[in-house]
C-alpha cells in the first residue's frame, strides 16, 4: 500500500508542561520549530508525532520525536530511511550497529506509555556522495537481509526522512521481532531538510582566532557561517572551546585578544583579569540547564520507557551532584512531613522520594533505578550558576499530588546546603566545605557506575547516554532492548544539551514553580537580573517571578582594549558585530542554533554601543623594531625562523608584545606572528640548548620505542655538501675556461698580423 507523507503543520508551541507523560505541547528543541504529523484522513483521536528540528538539520544532530495518542502498550519505532523508500512496505533503512563516522544506526524502538505518549530521539547525518563520505549501510526493516547503502543530502535523488511506525502490541508484551508492513495507517513519514552545505568563507576574509567557554561552541560556528560571506565585513572566527577559567587566563596572559566567557564574575576570572584592559560585550543568550536522559520502569513488563520531562529541586540536584542520591528510590524523602497515607506509598517509604513524587510515574511503575551524576569537572558557567542556584534558593514549598489528585504544598525537610556539605562515605576530605557557588565542581575521586564527571559537554553527554542507553553504550537511544531504567543528569549550557540530544529539566524557582528553559522564561529571568558596573548581569536566583527560569546565561565577549593594530581591531569588531547581529535577529539560511534565544533588545543596544566605542577608542601600539626569533638560531645557519625574512605563517600563535601584521596568501590577516626568543640561543652548531636533567626516574621502564636514525639522515648533509661543491666549482670552471678562451683569442690576434 502506498505511503503518503502526512500533512505537515508547523506550530508554534508553548513551554513544557509540568507533569510527565501528558501529551506534550512543547517543542523539545525549545526555541526551534517543530512539525506535528498526523495520518492523513484521520479525523478524531488521531495519533500524532511532534518532530523537531526538520529544517536546517545539522550533521549529527538529534531529532526529537514525541509520540502522542498512540495506542497504549503498542511498540513504536523510528527509522532513518532514504526518501525513495517512503512508499515501500518493507523499506531499506539505515542499519549500522557498529556505527559509521561516529554515529550508530539501528531501529529505535520503544514501548508507548499508558497515556499514549512516548519520547524518542534519533541522531541523523548529512552524508552527501563524494567528498570521501562513506555510504550509510541500509537493511530492510523486516530483517530479510536485503541490503543497500544510501547517501543523504537535500538533492531529489538523496533525500532522507524519518519514518515513525506503530508496530502494534507485539507478542506477550515483548518487542516485535519482525515488523509489520509499513502503511499509511501505521507509519508517518517526516522529510528532513539538512542545513545547506557551507560554501565556506571567502579566503579574503580576515581570520580571528578566539577561545571560548563551552557556552559559545554551538553558537559561534553558525554565526560565522551566516555572516562571513559579506566581502566587506565578513570575518572568519576560529574558536576553541575550553573551560572558562582557562579562557580568561589565556586572555590575561595575552594569548588571545578576543575570547568568550560565560562566567565573567567568577572570582578566579576576576583575579586573572586584574590589571588587564578589556570590555565585556554580551553576545549570546541561553541558559544553564540540568540536562538529562531518564527512563522509568513499567513493573508489569520490566520495560523502561523514556521520560520527556523532569522536575528538579535544589536539594535533588545537590544530592546528585555529590552522588548522595544514586537512585530515585529512597533519595530525598518527602515523608515526613508527608505521610504514606497521603501519597500512597503504603509501608514502603522509599517510594516517597521527591524524584518519584514530583515526577509522577504511571501506577505500577517506578522511577529510574539509578541516577548518574554527569557534571562537569572543569570551570564552566553552568556549574557556577547551578551551584549558585541551589545554594541561594529559599526552601520553598513544592507541589505534590496526593492519592486523591489534590495538590499539597510541601516544604522539603532536606535542604541543599546540608546535602551538599554532608561528607560522603570514603571521601576524605570532603570537597564541599560550604554551600556556595562552585565554578569548578570538585570531583569526588570515585570510580563508580553512578558517578561520571567529564571535562567537556561531549564527555558529559557520552556518560549520560551510556547510563541511559545501556548495552549499546553511546548508542542512539533505546536500541534493540530499550533504555535502562536509569537516568543521568549533568549541568551544561542549553546549546550543548540540545546538540547532544539531551533534555533540559524544569527547575524550581523561588516562587515555587517548576520552569523549563524557553525564550519567554529566559527573557523573564534576564529582566529580573541586575546590571553590574562591568556591564554584566547578576542573576537573581531568589526572584519570585513565577515565569522566570532560575538560571539564564549570557555569554560575553572579552575584548582587549590595550593597544592593538588598527586592522586587528577592525577585524575583531567586525566579527563581534556579525555575532551580535546574528544573535539578535538571525536571518537567512542559517537559523539560531537550538538552545539559544534571540539577544534581548537592551543587550543588543549595549553590545553595539560597546563595539562602536572599542572600534574608535582602542589605540594603535607604538612602533617597535622588528623582533628576530633569536631563539631559533639554534637551528643553525640553515634555520628559516631566524633573521628578518618573512616570519612563518601560522594562524594561531599568541603574542606577548604588540604585534605587526603579517600579510598572507589569504589576504589580510590579523595574526601577529612574533616568536620571542626564549632562553639562550646557540649558533652554528645546529644543536639546541639541552637542559641537563636528572637521570631517569627508577620507576621508568625501558620501552619499546627505539628511535633509530636511518640512513636518510645523510641526505640533507650530502645535498648541502653537493651544493657547496658544485656552485663555486662550476662557476670556477666556467670562469677559467672563459678566461683561457679569451687569452687564446688575444694571443691569436696578436700573432696574426705578423703573417
Amino acid at each position: 500500500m502506498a505511503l503518503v507523507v502526512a500533512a505537515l503543520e508547523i506550530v508554534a508551541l508553548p513551554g513544557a508542561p509540568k507533569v510527565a507523560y501528558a501529551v506534550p505541547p512543547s517543542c523539545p528543541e525549545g526555541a526551534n520549530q517543530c512539525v506535528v504529523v498526523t495520518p492523513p484522513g484521520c479525523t478524531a483521536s488521531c495519533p500524532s508525532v511532534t518532530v523537531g528540528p526538520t529544517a536546517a538539520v545539522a550533521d549529527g544532530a538529534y531529532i526529537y520525536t514525541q509520540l502522542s495518542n498512540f495506542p497504549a502498550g503498542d511498540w513504536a519505532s523510528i527509522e532513518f530511511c532514504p526518501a525513495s523508500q517512503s512508499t515501500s512496505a518493507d523499506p531499506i533503512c539505515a542499519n549500522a550497529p557498529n556505527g559509521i563516522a561516529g554515529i550508530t544506526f539501528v531501529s529505535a524502538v520503544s514501548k508507548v506509555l499508558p497515556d499514549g505518549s512516548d519520547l524518542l530521539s534519533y541522531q541523523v547525518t548529512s552524508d552527501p556522495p563524494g567528498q570521501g563520505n562513506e555510504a550509510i549501510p541500509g537493511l530492510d526493516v523486516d530483517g530479510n537481509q536485503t541490503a543497500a547503502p544510501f547517501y543523504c543530502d537535500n538533492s531529489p535523488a538523496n533525500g532522507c526522512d524519518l519514518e515513525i511506525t506503530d508496530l502494534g502490541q507485539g507478542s506477550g508484551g515483548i518487542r516485535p521481532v519482525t515488523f509489520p508492513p509499513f502503511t499509511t495507517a501505521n507509519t508517518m513519514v517526516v522529510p528532513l531538510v539538512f542545513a545547506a552545505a557551507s560554501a565556506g568563507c571567502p579566503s579574503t576574509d580576515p581570520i580571528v582566532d578566539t577561545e571560548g567557554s563551552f557556552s559559545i561552541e554551538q553558537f559561534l560556528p553558525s554565526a560565522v557561517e551566516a555572516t562571513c560571506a559579506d566581502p566587506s565585513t565578513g570575518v572568519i572566527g576560529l574558536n576553541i572551546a575550553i573551560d572558562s577559567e582557562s579562557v580568561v587566563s589565556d586572555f590575561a596572559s595575552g594569548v588571545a585578544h578576543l575570547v568568550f566567557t560565560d562566567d565573567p564574575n567568577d572570582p578566579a576570572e576576576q583575579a586573572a583579569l586584574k590589571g588587564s584592559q578589556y570590555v565585556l560585550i554580551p553576545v549570546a543568550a541561553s541558559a544553564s540547564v540540568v540536562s538529562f536522559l531518564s527512563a522509568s520502569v513499567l513493573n508489569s513488563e520490566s520495560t523502561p520507557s523514556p521520560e520527556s520531562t523532569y522536575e528538579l529541586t535544589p536539594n535533588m540536584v545537590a544530592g546528585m551532584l555529590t552522588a548522595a542520591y544514586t537512585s530515585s528510590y529512597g533519595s530525598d524523602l518527602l515523608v515526613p512531613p508527608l505521610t504514606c497515607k497521603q501519597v500512597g506509598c503504603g509501608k514502603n517509604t522509599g517510594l516517597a522520594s521527591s524524584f518519584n513524587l514530583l515526577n509522577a510515574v504511571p501506577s505500577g511503575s517506578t522511577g529510574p533505578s539509578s541516577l548518574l551524576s554527569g557534571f562537569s569537572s572543569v570551570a564552566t558557567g553552568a556549574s557556577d550558576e547551578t551551584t549558585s542556584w541551589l545554594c541561594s534558593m529559599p526552601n520553598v514549598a513544592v507541589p505534590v499530588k496526593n492519592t486523591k489528585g489534590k495538590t499539597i504544598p510541601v516544604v522539603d525537610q532536606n535542604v541543599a546546603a546540608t546535602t551538599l556539605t554532608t561528607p560522603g562515605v570514603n571521601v576524605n576530605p570532603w570537597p564541599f566545605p560550604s554551600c556556595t557557588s562552585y565554578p569548578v565542581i570538585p570531583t569526588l575521586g570515585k570510580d563508580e557506575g553512578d558517578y561520571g564527571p567529564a571535562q567537556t559537554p561531549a564527555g558529559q553527554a557520552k556518560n549520560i547516554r551510556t547510563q541511559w542507553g545501556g548495552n549499546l553504550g553511546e548508542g542512539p537511544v533505546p536500541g534493540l532492548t530499550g533504555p535502562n531504567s536509569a537516568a543521568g543528569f549533568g549541568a551544561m549550557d542549553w546549546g550543548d544539551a540540545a546538540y547532544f540530544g539531551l533534555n533540559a529539566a524544569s527547575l524550581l524557582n523561588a516562587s515555587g514553580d517548576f520552569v523549563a528553559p524557553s525564550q519567554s522564561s529566559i527573557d523573564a529571568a534576564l529582566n529580573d537580573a541586575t546590571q553590574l558596573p562591568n556591564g554584566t548581569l547578576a542573576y537573581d536566583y531568589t526572584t519570585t517571578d513565577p515565569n522566570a527560569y532560575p538560571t539564564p546565561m549570557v555569554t560575553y565577549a572579552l575584548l582587549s582594549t590595550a593597544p592593538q593594530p588598527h586592522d586587528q581591531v577592525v577585524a575583531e569588531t567586525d566579527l563581534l558585530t556579525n555575532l551580535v547581529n546574528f544573535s539578535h535577529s538571525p536571518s537567512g539560511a542559517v537559523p539560531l542554533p537550538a538552545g539559544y534565544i534571540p539577544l534581548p533588545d537592551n543587550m543588543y543596544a549595549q553590545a553595539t554601543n560597546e563595539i562602536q566605542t572599542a572600534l574608535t577608542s582602542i589605540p594603535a601600539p607604538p612602533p617597535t623594531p622588528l623582533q628576530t626569533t633569536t631563539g631559533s638560531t639554534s637551528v643553525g645557519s640553515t634555520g628559516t625562523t631566524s633573521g628578518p625574512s618573512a616570519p612563518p605563517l601560522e594562524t594561531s600563535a599568541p603574542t606577548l608584545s604588540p604585534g605587526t601584521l603579517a600579510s598572507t596568501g589569504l589576504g589580510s590577516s590579523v595574526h601577529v606572528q612574533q616568536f620571542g626568543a626564549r632562553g639562550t640561543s646557540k649558533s652554528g652548531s645546529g644543536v639546541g640548548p639541552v637542559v641537563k636533567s636528572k637521570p631517569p626516574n627508577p620507576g621508568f621502564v625501558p620501552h619499546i620505542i627505539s628511535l633509530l636514525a636511518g640512513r636518510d639522515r645523510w641526505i640533507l648533509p650530502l645535498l648541502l655538501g653537493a651544493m657547496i661543491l658544485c656552485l663555486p666549482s662550476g662557476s670556477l670552471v666556467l670562469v677559467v675556461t672563459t678566461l683561457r678562451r679569451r687569452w687564446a683569442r688575444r694571443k691569436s690576434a696578436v700573432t696574426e698580423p705578423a703573417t
Partner: protein
Amino acid sequence: MTERDTWVPADMAVSTPLLLPPAPPRDVGMPVQTDTVGAWPPATPRHRRRSRGMRWDAVGVVLTGMGALLLLFFTYLYVFTPLTHGRDQHRLLQSLVGNRRAVYSLVAHQLPAEGKPIGILTIPALHQREVIVMGTSSADLQQGPGLMAHTVVPGDPGNSVIAGRRATYGAPFASLGTLVRGDRVDVVDGAGRFTFRVTSVRQLSGGQADAAPVRGQAWLTLVTSNSALDASGHLIVVAKAAVSSDVTGSLPRSRYDTTLAGLGGDPAAGILALLWGVAFVVGLGAALYAIRRSRQVWLPYMFATPVLLACGLFACESLARCLPATL
C-alpha cells in the same frame, strides 16, 4: 689523401716561410682541397684543445646548473615550506573547529584517519600553538606535529608521543630544547583539555631506547631531531599530566599500522623525486631547444615556465619527503 690535399694547421700557417704563396683565407683547421673529396684529417692539438675547452665548458655548466638546482631546493625547503605549513595549519584548524562531530567522535572512541587533525598543542613558553595530526610519517609532519601511532591520545593514561619538525615546514619544534622543567604544555582535543608539566629534556642517540613513563599515568613526549642538519638522534621533552584524566575519559590507542622506525623519511618519495627531476631536466632541455629554434621566443617561455615550475615543485616536495621526518 692525395698529394694535392694539403692540411695546413692554423698555428703552422703563421710560421709558413715567405717562399710559399700566401695561404688563401680559410677556416682554421679546414683542409685545403682542390679537386678531391677526402676524409677529414685527424685532429690536431689545437682542435683537441678546442674540444677540451668545450668539455670543460660543459662540466662547468653542469656543475653550476646542479648547484643552482640544489640552491633552489634549499630555498624551497627553508623559505617555501614554512608557507605551506602555515596554510596547512590554517586548514586543519578550520576543519577541527568547524566539524564538531569529528571532534566529538573522539569521545566516542572514533579516531580520525591518518593525516587528519586530532587536537591542538599549545606551549605558552614558546608562544606556540599547533594543530596535531594523526601519524608521524614524513608527509604527516609536513602539516604539523603528529601523534605517533600505537601511542595513546593525549590525556589518556600512558605515554602519548608527538613528533614535530625542527628545521623545515615551519619548524614547530625548533625551540623545543629551550624548555625547562616545569614549563606548561597544553593539549586540547575532543576529550578535553589536558595540562602537562615538563619533567625532563634530553637527547637520545640513534638506537638508544626511549625510557617510557610509569604506567597508569598520563604522559606526553615531544620528539624532534637533535640537529637541524644531521638527524643523528632525537631531542625529547617528557611532560607529565598536571591533573589526572577523567576516570571515564579512557580513549583507545591508534588503530592503524604505520612503520615509523626512527621517524625516517619516505623512501618511496625518492623515486618520485627522481622521476620529477628527470621530467624537469627533460623539460628544461626541450625548452632551451625550443627557445633557440623558435622565432617567437615568448611562446616557449609561456608554455615551458608553468611546466617547469610544477615539475620543480613536485621534485622538491618529493625530495623533502625523503628527509628524516623530524628534520
